[in-house]
């Protein structure tokens, strides 16, 4: 009995060893290229595989991504593209998966991150390569707006390539509802919104709809922006505006008042159902980024300007509150040569003009082919390319506040929405800001 057992375990050990050898062998013929020292690797890329990590799975997102990947495949026909996508709004799930991979030293060849503070931890942990050389080589400093590059620059270095721009400070509305209530135009300030809200409520309409907690944060940033103006708003994130000043607490109280005229007690489960009452004519307004346009136009098939309208959120005319998806070059990317080619494409005019009209966003470059951006997209594109426009970064989408600070804002906001205590919120955020410096 025992001898049989010994023999079996001996045999299985041998099998195990053989399997291990196979695994090792297959690791060995990995076609990774040696990372070049900072600069470009001369000649054509030799890798045959490219792994790309994103959270683009929604409508518009995945088609846009596919168009860009197709363009990449055209240029590198012998390369196998591995599209490692993890579903989940604003990339929350993707980021957890990615975190695990980065910590295990198993990065993809390029991964998606929002531009700005959200990339900060990756930079601090030295997980991404400095791409300043690529910016110089491709002349990108001249084609991306200076104010945007400033928010993306850390210690004179830039670590990611933005492919698109979304706008946050927008208020969407149903023109029929406004006409019915006798309102001529969307409000130009939050004070005016409160006046309109009374009229709308008298007509039995919900003035403003809202969704889950991140949409409340999205509203908060735009109320703050509308009340404080671009300069003071930007100061909230670099310490030059005091969170506990009366100016800021007044703006926070305005947020509470605005929420009181929304359906926050019956908040929708996601941003799309939050738009539904506006579409159905039961509500007038919704503050949401311009991905909402895809929902109105594509998913619901509505006509822009007649069936739904949009303008800058109250008090933010002449300001562009932006967020952007960008791609990185991870340290130790297995196919670095292709990753660099991918970044060149993502930052190129052709790449951005291929991706953005489908995704429903505008290029981060200011030299885009304007004829490609029609309907709603005309407005943000004109504004983005306008040298007079003031650019500010979004809070809810990771431009001005990174993971740790942003999570603490979430905690404080949950309490603030329930209690309406603006002073307490201001001091909690101030404390969190200082703790994360």
């Amino acid at each position, binding site marked *: 009995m025992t001898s049989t057992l010994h023999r079996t375990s001996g045999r299985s050990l041998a099998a195990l060893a053989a399997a291990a050898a196979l695994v090792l062998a297959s690791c060995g013929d990995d076609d990774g290229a040696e990372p070049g020292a900072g600069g470009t690797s001369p000649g054509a890329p030799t890798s045959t595989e490219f792994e790309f990590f994103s959270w683009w799975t929604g409508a518009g997102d995945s088609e846009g991504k596919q168009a860009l990947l197709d363009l990449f495949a055209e240029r590198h026909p012998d390369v196998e593209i591995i599209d490692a996508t993890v579903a989940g709004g604003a990339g929350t799930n993707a980021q*957890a998966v990615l975190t695990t991979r980065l910590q295990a030293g198993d990065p993809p060849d390029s991964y998606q991150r929002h531009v700005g503070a959200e990339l900060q931890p990756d930079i601090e942990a030295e*997980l991404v390569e400095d791409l300043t050389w690529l910016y110089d080589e491709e002349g990108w400093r001249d084609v991306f707006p200076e104010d945007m590059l400033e928010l993306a620059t850390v210690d004179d270095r830039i670590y990611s390539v933005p492919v698109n721009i979304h706008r946050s400070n927008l208020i969407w509305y149903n023109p029929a509802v406004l006409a019915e209530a006798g309102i001529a135009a969307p409000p130009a300030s939050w004070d005016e919104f409160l006046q309109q809200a009374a009229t709308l409520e008298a007509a039995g309409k919900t003035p403003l709809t809202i969704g*889950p907690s991140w949409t409340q944060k999205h509203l908060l940033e735009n109320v703050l922006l509308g009340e404080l103006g671009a300069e003071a708003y930007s100061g909230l994130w670099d310490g030059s505006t005091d969170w506990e000043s009366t100016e800021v607490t007044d703006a926070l109280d305005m947020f509470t008042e605005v929420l009181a005229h929304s359906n926050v*007690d019956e908040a929708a489960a996601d941003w799309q159902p939050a738009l539904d009452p506006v579409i159905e004519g039961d509500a007038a307004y919704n503050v949401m980024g311009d991905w909402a346009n895809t929902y109105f136009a594509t998913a619901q098939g509505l006509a822009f300007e007649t069936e739904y309208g949009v303008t800058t959120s109250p008090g933010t005319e002449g300001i562009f509150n932006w967020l952007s998806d960008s791609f990185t070059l991870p340290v130790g990317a297995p196919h670095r040569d292709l990753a660099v080619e991918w970044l060149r494409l993502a930052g190129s005019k052709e790449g951005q003009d291929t991706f953005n009209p489908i995704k429903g966003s505008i290029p981060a470059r200011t030299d885009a082919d304007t004829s490609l951006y029609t309907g709603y997209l005309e407005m943000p594109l004109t504004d983005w390319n306008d040298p007079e426009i003031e650019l500010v970064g979004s809070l809810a989408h990771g431009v001005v506040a990174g993971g740790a600070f942003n999570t603490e804002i979430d905690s404080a906001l949950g309490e603030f929405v329930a209690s309406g205590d603006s002073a307490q919120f201001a001091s909690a955020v101030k404390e969190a800001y200082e703790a994360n410096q």
Partner: protein
Amino acid sequence: MCRIRKWGPAALLVAPSLLAIGVFVYGFLGWNLRVSVSDWRGLRATYDYAGLDNYRRLAEDTRFIDGVQNVVVFTLVFVFGTLVFGFLLALLLERGVRGEAFFRTVFLFPMAISFIATAIIWRWLLSNASGAQETGLNRLFDSLGVGFLANDWFKSDSYWAVASVAIAAGWALVGYIMALFLAGLRGVSDDLREAARVDGASEAKAFWHVVRPMLLPVVMSAIVILAHISLKTFDLIYAMDAKSRKIETPALYMWFITFEGLNFSIGAAIATLLMVGIAAVIVPYIWYSVRSERRP
């Protein structure tokens, strides 16, 4: 030598699983404990000793404290509710309903649905939207003319908001508890009941004095299973209303502060406290069952 031959093969057979459990359960438990007393923030691990700072911070963190309160309410409603309804269903089936197999399957089915899907169904059923957006139970109540029953459910301002999530969790698991009780009830031999009847016991008395004591082990197992599920519940709450403070439990906060806040040490501290919570339920059970197994 002879003794090795006796227990050697057995030891060899259990060695892989002992090793796996040692590394993946106890090894990681220890590692987690170490992270929880470190100062690890950000994407690169640091293990500098920070004492009990993280636990102290949690003790003052209102989001964590609200979460603990929510998980207590959730556990009480979920465990008690599921036990009661599971038992009632088992009792009904045990009475010999026609088509028992059919009902058994129907009641068990919800368990086969993932918690994410369950949450999405119940999010709709328990929506508190009004007017044209009204859906689910509230709409049903309104159309049946019992609109006063309509409720804000998991968006309610009361401490009980999280109890409505327990309804969804209970719906998913009640069939399983029913099956446990059914097996327990079937395990009571008819001879014993007959004997009780012959001795002149009423049906109720026979149940109370004969059947009930024999169901105690089933109740104990059911409580342990339900309580540990309740402490770990994540997906259900995440899909129902992520980041809503009204229903957030420490398990969710742990995820957000770890993977969004990149505050790994606080996340590990929450994980440790959750483990202590689960141990508080399971250890007495193990102690009880070991003791009762030893009894002749």
